[in-house]
């Protein structure tokens, strides 16, 4: 049984809770891969996706997860610009709550927004990414994928390369992987490394090779073009030359190492096209697993709600 009505981040989850979600996702993946991927486990439940930022995969993944389990779903898009002048987040949340929804998935450009929402609604809040803070379901699907590939998480060496500073994916993976006993190595230009990240258990490396050396999994993070305009790096080609992952870098990883990326990927920037499409890549498997993990989470939260609310 999960311990909270919401999933705001992996920072506050226990290892037991994470394992519980990953275990439940195994069953969900079977359902997902079956001929009739339809269940009525969540029949009569309603989910709203409330996105203040663009998203393709996270949003459709949540929506499909809800549909496959028989819940109804509605999506609400809010232009970022209207955050500051429109209805407040609390008012929006209370309005949705009044429509008797069970879940709200929120993506928001500002850290802490899901927590604020969760404090003001009865529905379960699922963090679909908040600012530079957390993206817990992405990290859960990443861990699920790694566990599928290696049978365990404990003892794995995971290398994360890219814009760590602005990456909620990196943060959630760091929190989750450390809790499950993996080692996390990071590499990026100094402009993309957040302060004192090592205190959270990450090892910040001096080179790509050092980060990837002996790694079981190598994760590239999306470089956002606007960061270049912000001066965090001079050009995409320079980034790819000094910080991208290619075959030569992958030679330092373990033989059976896998390549991960949360997507959408900039081909030839974070990862070479050969790696993205190659046999080490689990990038599309990650997408499948994302649906399974979210199905599991919705079911577990429903169980929590039934038991506690």
């Amino acid at each position, binding site marked *: 049984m999960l311990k909270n009505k919401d999933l705001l981040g992996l920072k506050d989850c226990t290892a037991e809770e994470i394992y519980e979600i990953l275990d439940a996702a195994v069953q969900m993946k079977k359902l997902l891969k079956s001929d009739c991927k339809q269940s009525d486990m969540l029949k009569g439940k309603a989910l709203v996706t409330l996105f203040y930022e663009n998203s393709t995969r996270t949003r459709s993944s949540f929506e499909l997860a809800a549909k496959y389990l028989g819940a109804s779903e509605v999506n609400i898009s809010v232009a970022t610009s209207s955050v500051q002048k429109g209805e407040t987040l609390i008012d929006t949340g209370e309005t949705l709550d009044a429509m008797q929804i069970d879940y709200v998935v929120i993506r928001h450009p500002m850290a802490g927004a899901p927590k*604020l929402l969760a404090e003001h609604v009865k529905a379960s809040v699922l963090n679909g990414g908040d600012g530079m803070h957390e993206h817990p379901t992405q990290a859960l699907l990443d861990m699920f994928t790694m566990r599928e590939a290696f049978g365990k998480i404990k003892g794995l060496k995971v290398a994360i390369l890219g814009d760590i500073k602005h990456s909620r994916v990196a943060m959630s993976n760091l929190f989750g992987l450390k809790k499950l006993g993996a080692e996390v190595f990071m590499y990026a230009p100094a402009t993309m490394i957040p302060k*004192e990240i090592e205190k959270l258990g990450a090892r910040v490396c001096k080179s790509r090779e050092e980060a990837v050396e002996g790694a079981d999994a190598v994760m590239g993070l999306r470089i956002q073009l606007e960061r270049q305009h912000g001066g965090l790096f001079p050009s995409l080609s320079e980034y790819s030359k000094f910080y991208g992952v290619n075959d030569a870098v992958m030679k330092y990883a373990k033989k059976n190492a896998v390549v991960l990326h949360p997507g959408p990927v900039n081909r030839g920037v974070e990862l070479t096209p050969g790696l993205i499409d190659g046999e080490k890549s689990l990038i599309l498997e990650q997408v499948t697993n994302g649906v399974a993990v979210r199905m599991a989470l919705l079911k577990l939260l429903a169980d929590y709600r039934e038991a506690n609310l």
Partner: protein
Amino acid sequence: MKLLIKNGTLVTADGEIKADLLVNGKVIERIAPAINEKCETIDAKGKHVLAGIIDMHVHLREPGFEGKEDVESGCKAAVKGGVTQVCCMPNTNPVCDNAVVVTYIKHRAEEVNLCKVNPIGAITKGQNGESLSDIGKMKSAGIVAISDDGKSVANSAVMRLAMEYANDFNLKCLCHCEDANLVDGGVVNEGYNSTLCGLKGSLRAAEDIMIARDIALSESLDIPVHICHVSTYSGAALIKSAKERGVKVTAETCPHYFILTDDIITSYDTNTKVNPPVREEKDRQAIISALKDGTIDCIVTDHAPHSLKDKQVEYNLAAFGISGIETSFALSYTYLVKTGLMSLSELSEKMSANPAKILGLEGGGLGEGAAADLTIVDLKEKYVIDGNKFVSKGKNTPFNGFEVFGAVKYTIVDGEIKYRG
């Protein structure tokens, strides 16, 4: 009208003395071991009598932002906090950059008739950082200093001209030190906790660079300058070394910088959002040291009241600021004097004498002939801070639940009792 304060302990620059104090009209007429006079009498037995607290960094929000505070609610909050005199910052709407607004604020303060209100004029028109306000006319209307508080005058050439011009009118620049480009949208201190919370951080350097610049201008021009709300250990070090070589720099800090660290931001409680941000333990320790060794001259509140709707939003969207004027004495007493870090006389110097000296204000001391601005406190009385009980419109405090000592019992302004606790 006479007012006799009997049996109290007077907190003077030279220490604490048991004596009676007789007020006649607006001045302290006599201080003596035992005064007997048939007039209104306060029995201050077991209580301490201090020179009225002067808070030289306050936002009264009027005109323009009366939803957050107005002159009346701000002055009520001030006297409740034992403050007899405030200096109010010009970031109102319209900005206090002309004599009309100065006159309006002074007029409102007279109507309210609680504490003394000294407006601070904007350095530049509309706080635009470009062209100087009518500094001379504002001086005639009653300003006591100039400041573009809330931001720095980014253009050093404009700042230089402001300092030179204001100095002719015997006005100091009060410098909010912040390199806006370097802050770049940061909302908390940049460090471990900003990483942990995914909140955009702001480096100490963003504050220090402007402290260094304003010290450099002061030194080059030989014109005094005052640094607002110092929050960094490194900024304090810059001020200390400048003072050692004789630069005419003075400085202030606020209770939140010597009591809190950025560990509090992990709650995402927007009441912890303040500019400059609360920083780390080594900064907190350095600010205390700087208060003790005289590097930092005074304690102010940067009283920044906000309405609930300004704070009950996402952390990034929330307004910066802490409503602090009702809690500054108790917090300062509890965390600086009760802990043995300084004497009550030294605290009184930081909260009364030095602000008066820096801005050339009346009050600030206990002595025969001085202004009868007095704060009487009960140091043994403890209470728990609850922002919802503030009389300020701004209930925004990160100190909810803090147990403090030092309840304000009387606030006396110009010989009149303006608050009874």
